[in-house]
């Protein structure tokens, strides 16, 4: 099978090509990167004029709820949702039931993800047995089975000694520890950002110090052990500042931010009349925190954008705010939410910077064998995402492949959408309307 993608604006993972570029895919592998190719060479050909062709997007952090909570999501529905959202690789979190803390469960995720015709799903394993935060899980066996990150996400690794041991022990495995940064005593019982939102609502406030304090602890342990550490869903300006200075001093720390913290703020909680759809951990922060995340992207402090897609059943979210579950489902509009905000801010930096956070940024955090993700190179498997940065479209959760039926962006018109997703050369998503007349 020979597929030709013609006249694209090519983003190769680090920079944009100046001239329209063609890519020839033969049996799932990128055969040629060239220009002015004759469409007759291929079995199938698409004209991507005006569209941006990128390495397949990677989501380092999503919850597919499988095994054990399949009424919320499962590996198949999640992988189809990922494809529709422009992702070719998803890393699913291990806070399932039972938690993914053994090689058998790592293999379960990998095997089940093969049944769907969607995005590649790679499992993260737990840092601690049973995700209980007491003793190390079998990280070596899980790494061999294919775990790509270790995390107790949903909770921090609260015991500092355990986190230190985990860093030391995992070092030789080449699989990074991802910390959910939260000082649990400061966040205990908290519901919303400790600021305007807690002040007006009377809901217990979640200070940004709860996040920054845990990040500072992690940075100290990174310095102590010399082992890289990744902080996920960083939400505040204070945290960005701490990370910026750690990076400046040369420590191997990395971080990701979410589409919802980049595009929403705590004011939405109040203006919606305390709608549970805006309830998330960590909470939506102030406008100035949101601005700081964008500054963190601009200056390279932020390494990746990860969705923290956290689907729930409607009955777990459609409740008075205080009783609703924490989590925002976003896989299918995450890229659009970020691109839309980038447009709204008047494109504060070149698009390449933003695109690298979906591609080369996250791939650099994954184990060596996945380094080919996040680049477009001859001879590599054809994992590709095609974007239409100018396309405007309304979010409609009723059309989602995800089981989630609630989203803060439902009904919003967003600008900038993924329109085609290829995994190993297979088209796992195509926006038919966009491709009318491009065949």
């Amino acid at each position, binding site marked *: 099978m020979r597929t030709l993608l013609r006249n694209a604006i090519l983003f190769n993972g680090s920079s944009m090509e100046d001239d329209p570029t063609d890519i020839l895919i033969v049996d799932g592998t990128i055969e040629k990167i060239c220009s002015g190719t004759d469409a007759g060479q291929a079995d199938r050909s698409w004209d991507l004029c005006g569209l941006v062709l990128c390495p397949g997007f990677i989501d380092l952090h999503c919850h597919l709820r499988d095994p054990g909570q399949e009424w919320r999501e499962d590996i198949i529905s999640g992988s189809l949702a990922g494809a529709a959202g422009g992702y070719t690789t998803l890393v699913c979190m291990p806070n399932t039931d039972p938690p993914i803390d053994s090689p058998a469960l790592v293999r379960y995720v990998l095997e089940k993800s093969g049944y769907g015709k969607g995005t590649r799903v790679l499992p993260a394993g737990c840092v601690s047995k049973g995700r209980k935060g007491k003793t190390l899980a079998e990280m070596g066996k899980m790494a061999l089975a294919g775990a790509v990150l270790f995390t107790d996400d949903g909770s921090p690794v609260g015991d500092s000694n355990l986190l230190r041991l985990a860093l030391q022990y995992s070092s030789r495995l080449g699989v990074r520890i991802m910390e959910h940064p939260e000082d649990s005593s400061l966040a205990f019982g908290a*519901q919303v950002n*400790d*600021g*305007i939102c*807690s*002040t*007006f*609502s*009377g*809901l217990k*406030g979640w200070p940004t110090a709860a996040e920054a304090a845990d990040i500072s602890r992690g940075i100290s342990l990174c310095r102590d052990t010399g082992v890289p550490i990744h902080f996920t869903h960083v939400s505040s300006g204070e945290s960005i500042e701490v990370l910026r200075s750690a990076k400046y001093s040369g420590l191997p720390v990395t971080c990701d931010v979410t589409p919802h913290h980049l595009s929403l703020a705590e004011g939405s909680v109040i203006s919606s*009349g*305390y*709608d*549970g759809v805006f309830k998330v951990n960590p909470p939506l922060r102030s406008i100035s925190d949101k601005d700081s995340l964008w500054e963190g992207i601009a200056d390279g402090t932020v390494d990746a954008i990860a969705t923290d897609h956290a689907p729930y059943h409607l*009955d777990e979210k*459609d*409740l*008075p*705010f*205080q*009783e609703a579950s924490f989590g925002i489902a976003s896989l299918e509009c995450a890229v659009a939410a970020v691109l839309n905000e980038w447009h709204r801010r008047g494109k504060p930096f070149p698009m390449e910077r933003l695109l690298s956070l979906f591609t080369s940024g996250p791939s650099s955090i994954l184990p060596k064998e996945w380094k080919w993700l996040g680049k477009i190179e001859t001879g590599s498997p054809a994992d590709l995402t095609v974007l239409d940065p100018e396309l405007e479209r309304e979010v409609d959760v009723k059309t989602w492949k995800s089981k989630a039926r609630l989203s803060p962006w439902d009904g919003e018109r967003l600008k900038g959408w993924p329109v085609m997703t290829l995994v190993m050369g297979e088209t796992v998503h195509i926006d038919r309307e966009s491709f009318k007349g491009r065949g």
Partner: protein
Amino acid sequence: MEWRHRHVIDLDTWDRSDLQFIMEQSRSMDELLDRPIKKVPALRGKLVVNLFFEASTRTRVSFELAEKFLSADVVNWSASGSSTGKGETLRDTAWTLEAMGADAVVIRHGAVGAADYLARKLRKSSVFNGGDGAHAHPTQALLDLYTAWKKLGDLDGMKMAMIGDVLHSRVARSDIIAFNRMGVKVELSGPATLMPRDTHALGAEFREDPRDALKGADIVYLLRIQRERQEEGMFPSLDEYHQFFGADDELLEFARPGALVMHPGPINRGVEISSTVADGAQSMILGQVRSGVALRMALLFVCLGGANQ
């Protein structure tokens, strides 16, 4: 005046003319309370459901009296005695009430946003927030405002000192909005651990020393101290609280002579208020209780269409 509020959820969308109108309506109702026969047929044939998920005697009884004086049909639906205890969602309860033909629902709930939520789910009924978590207690704020207005007249330019646990107080949040809108300057005091993050945004100034907050105050508002807060370690002891922040004659000296003393009740004698102050000439505490019935009558009357007829 055209009344534009179907629900009473929070006062943040109310302007001064709304408040002024309700004050005047409350005064008319207040006059009714002096008559030998208090009942009027204003809401005859209307069904009002009092939906209480949290224990409450004062607010529930006050609403119930107001409803009965206006001749509404009243149903008390308490969460412990209903299917809610068996895990029915608030959404299903809401739809059930509407199917039964409730014209108005008074809700008291421990979760912030419960009244907002109920209002979103009901297509026809009016919702009256009888307190949602630590968020809002608009009818308390309105009755407080009415009490002060009745006594002091135009409140513009006056000062209120509010002392106590503002952090966990729905009364404080709603009162600050209501009194601010009428031109009253509000200053807060209490242990810093019991203050919200951004008192400025709330519209009030925080004073570490309660004597500073009381300086020149026309109204001294004392908030109830919940024993649980001390047990949670938010301040060391009730005794220490009383020593620094309890309203006794000595502290009251700092306010304007004759300043009104208010409290939402029930009071903790010897904690946030001394008995001499609670029972003293400046105390409005029982006046507030009476105002509450009149104010709630006025609200029910105008929101259920009475004022526009």
